[in-house]
């Protein structure tokens, strides 16, 4: 455990190499990154630059080949799969480009899922699911299945699912990628509201318009951080 001083995420010298058929692909090289609590950070860059890989490692969906990673002061680079799973469930909320709602579950059941895996009581689950759906304006569609919703509505449900467990950080991977501009804007507004209410958000996007919603943007190229801009600079 290290002193956090408001730091939620800290990465030092993180590398990710993929090995396939004797070919080494260096997806990430020497990533040094720090994210404070309450920050809204976006990761931008061209296709194939390593954005999603970085987000996967940040979200504990994958582990780095080398380097150190602390989440909330706890080293998480070398955790076992089950330890990573537990932390993902309790401390990270995911929003995916393709929404990734489970088609055979209702809106309510989709949002309830992280709490179910956590072992939360049914009464508490009900209360939290209701609250999360109200926050995204989808409480009136509890019994609907994903296929009965529009893309924008599905992504709102996905945001509710990410929020329901009160995670330390929301990880959003191209959250507007599958939406039209109107719905994309709406989702981005929703994320901004959440951030204003104190949520820490880390978003991957290749769309500069949406990157500008964040107060800080990291630019990746060929697996390296090549530039970092902050809200003031963006506004300037």
């Amino acid at each position, binding site marked *: 455990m290290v002193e956090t001083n408001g730091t939620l995420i800290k990465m030092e010298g993180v590398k990710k190499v993929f090995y396939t058929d004797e070919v080494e692909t260096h997806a990430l090289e020497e990533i040094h990154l720090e994210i404070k609590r309450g920050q809204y950070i976006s990761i931008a860059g061209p296709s194939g630059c390593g954005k999603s890989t970085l987000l996967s490692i940040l979200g504990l969906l994958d582990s780095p080949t080398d380097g150190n990673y602390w989440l909330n002061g706890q080293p998480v680079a070398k955790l076992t799969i089950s330890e990573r799973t537990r932390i993902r469930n309790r401390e990270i909320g995911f929003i995916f480009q393709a929404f*990734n709602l489970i088609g055979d579950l209702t809106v309510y059941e989709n949002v309830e*899922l992280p709490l179910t895996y956590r072992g939360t009581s049914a009464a508490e689950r009900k209360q939290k699911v209701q609250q999360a759906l109200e926050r995204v304006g989808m409480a009136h569609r509890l019994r609907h299945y994903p296929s009965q919703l529009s893309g924008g509505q599905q992504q709102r449900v996905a945001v509710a699912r990410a929020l329901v467990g009160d995670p330390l950080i929301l990880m959003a991977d191209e959250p507007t990628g599958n939406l039209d501009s109107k719905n994309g804007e709406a989702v981005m507004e929703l994320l901004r509201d959440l951030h204003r209410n104190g949520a820490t958000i880390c978003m991957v996007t290749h769309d500069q318009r949406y990157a500008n919603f964040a107060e800080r943007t990291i630019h990746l190229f060929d697996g390296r951080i090549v530039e970092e801009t902050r809200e003031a600079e963006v506004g300037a």
Partner: protein
Amino acid sequence: MRTLWQDVKYGLRILAKNPGFTAIAVTTLALGIGANTAIFSVLNQVLLRRLPVLNPERLVILKSPGPKRGHVWSDGDDSEIFSYPLYKGLAKNTAVFDGVIARYEFSASIASNGQTERGSGELVSGNYFETLGVRPALGRLLMPADDDVQGAHPVLVLSHGYWTQHFGGDSGVLNHTILVNNTVMTIVGVAQAGFTGIQVGQTPDIFVPITMKGQMTPIRNGLDDWNDSFLAVLARLKSGVSREQAQAAINVDYHPLLEQQMEHLGGSGDRVHGKDREEFLNKKVVLYPGAQGRTTVQRDSGPALKALFAMVGLVLLIACTNVANLLLAKGAARQREFAVRSALGATKGRMIRQLMVESFLCAVAGGGLGILLGAWLMNILTQAVVSEGGVQGITSQVDATVLGFAAAATAASAFVFGWIPAWRVARGGVSQILKDQGSTGSAGPGHVRFRKVLVAGQVAFTVLLLAGATLFAQTLWNLRKQNLGLSTENLITFSISPQLSGYDGLKTIALVDQLRQRLAGLPGVLGVGSSQIPVLTGTDMGSNITVEGRPNTDNDERHVNYDAVSPNYFSTMKIPLLSGREFNDADMATSPKVAVINEAMVKAFFPNRNPIGVHFAMGSGDVKPDIEIVGVVKDAKESHVRDNARPYFYRPYAQFGKLFGMTFYVRTNQDPLLIANDLRQIVRQQDANLPLYELKTMRRVVDEDLFAERVIAGLSSSFGALAAVLAALGIYGVLAYLVVQRTREIGIRLALGAPSAHVRALVFKEVGWMVLAGAAVGLPSAYGLARVSESLFFGVYAGDIAVYLVSFGVIVMIATIACYVPSRRATRIDPIVALRYE
């Protein structure tokens, strides 16, 4: 628990939303579980079930392997049969046994309620029920006091089944009298429900004290004869006494009893000297576990039942493999769902649990349907086993054991088909799948490889079953082709047992003479014959013989089976006469004794001389050969279709003092069943109290003799066919998936100008490897299993290469058919669409 319920609800929803998958999986499992349940039900009743008596594990069967002397009335294993004096001597041992019991099954002619029927009776020792711990359902059971004096206690106990079927469960039957084998007997009680004696396959209607044997089997009593062995003997071990201790103790008593038996051999012409005597006196009693009662049926049908159970087990395994393959395909389509679940914090165990719940729900549906299907199959199977196989008491009842088996098969199936797909889905790489935002998720090459391995496994099991089915079908075919030595065409048969209705020897002969004449007078009848031993029913009768001019050597070489037959028997049966003459009405009791022998007997006893005119005698020792051979006939099957030709002789029934029954054969010029009622009427007119039984065509007799072979061939062929269909489905499923997965590649090939044949070859190559790999495992395994089952075959052997070629040919054909649609689909891929395909 609540989350488990959530999994159940979700699983039900998944199954309901995929009706095609659910229907195929449930039906496949139902077929496998149903077939297994049906076969297990019979296997359980025949091989596994213990007697419904008190502490059956303390029962032991007494056997005495080694040479036998005198007459042995055995139903298969001579070592299990003891004389009444020997039994009485053994029963005196109360140090290690709580009781020693004896029983003998007899045919009963039972007259009650104005009707005479043929039934089955059991002569039992007085302590039979007490030792077994069987209770009365009504009245009392037989007691030791009921067998103290021979012929003094004409009482009987009804079996519960007979009481309910024939007396409607009327409690007023107590102290009523019925006529059994012409003896008035008083009903003193009814045995407890469910108790059907101590031998699987036999369900006695009545239990009679053993000391009434003289009345129940009028042509022979045998109770005082040390050398008339007919009793099966069981004992109950005292508490705390082991089988080994009891065996040691009983053998102390046994030796002096054997010496006594030896003393009684004196005048029988069967004296024993020297080494033979020593060997006889050194015999021991060996105790075998008796919890299942006598194991005659188990011994006869055990190997076939076990082979069938193994085959049907393979069918279930193939069914499970098929469902596993379906689940793997479904799992590939659900990879994203489980990646999301994992991202949201579901542990691997939690995801496996959910998938296993789905598998169990599927299996439970399959198991439930399987039990219904099994009950239906059991009904068909048990009806056949009872009516054609002659094994009584086998029921189609779905009891707790059968349900337990079905439940276990269901759970095991769910585990077998569900575990690996669940494990493979749950272990999927989360990050990579989620990164693949646009696609629905496709499985990697490892996934496809594993599915191919499963199909190869299915092919291996199917080849195994097909080889087994081919061997058994070939066996039946060979038996059907057997030259019986007689013609079954338009031949009908029935039996009577006059001695059980009070006829003595002379009256029986007169009765048979009259019946033959009357039957011959029926319109359309071409010939009438009769024999004491019913042909092809597994019954036989034998004796040592002494042939004039031929020295007596080994006992075995002199033992010949024989029958007592009527005039015109051979012409009626169409058994060709090779030389001499057949019997005629002049061969009377007072005429010179004559015999007709078969070819095998000529080869064995008269290799270099004409047997006509030669005399022989039945028995050995100081006997005078006084039976003249007057004819030679071709070999005909007597006991079983399976039997090889062996020496056999026939004598006129008129020259037999004691006939214990007579079977008639009537040949007609049309369908013989058309005269069945006329046959009944003639017998009834002759004697209304004489039951006629086993009225059937000779074709049916042959079918019944081949019952076991027919069942095995029929079931194994059905299992083979089912396995082939399941394998075809498995092959089709994998190929269809492969074609979809390789659509882009095939599109590129087609765009580059690949001909259709090339594309088709790509698909066939895939299936070729699976079939070859399966056959490489399946064929040697089939050979290995065939080697250990060779005793079940006839005219075909484990190393018969044609059997394996046929099996391989069938699986190749099945694979080709299964391959047709996917390969056709592959050749019709539009390159433009395919290149856009992702």
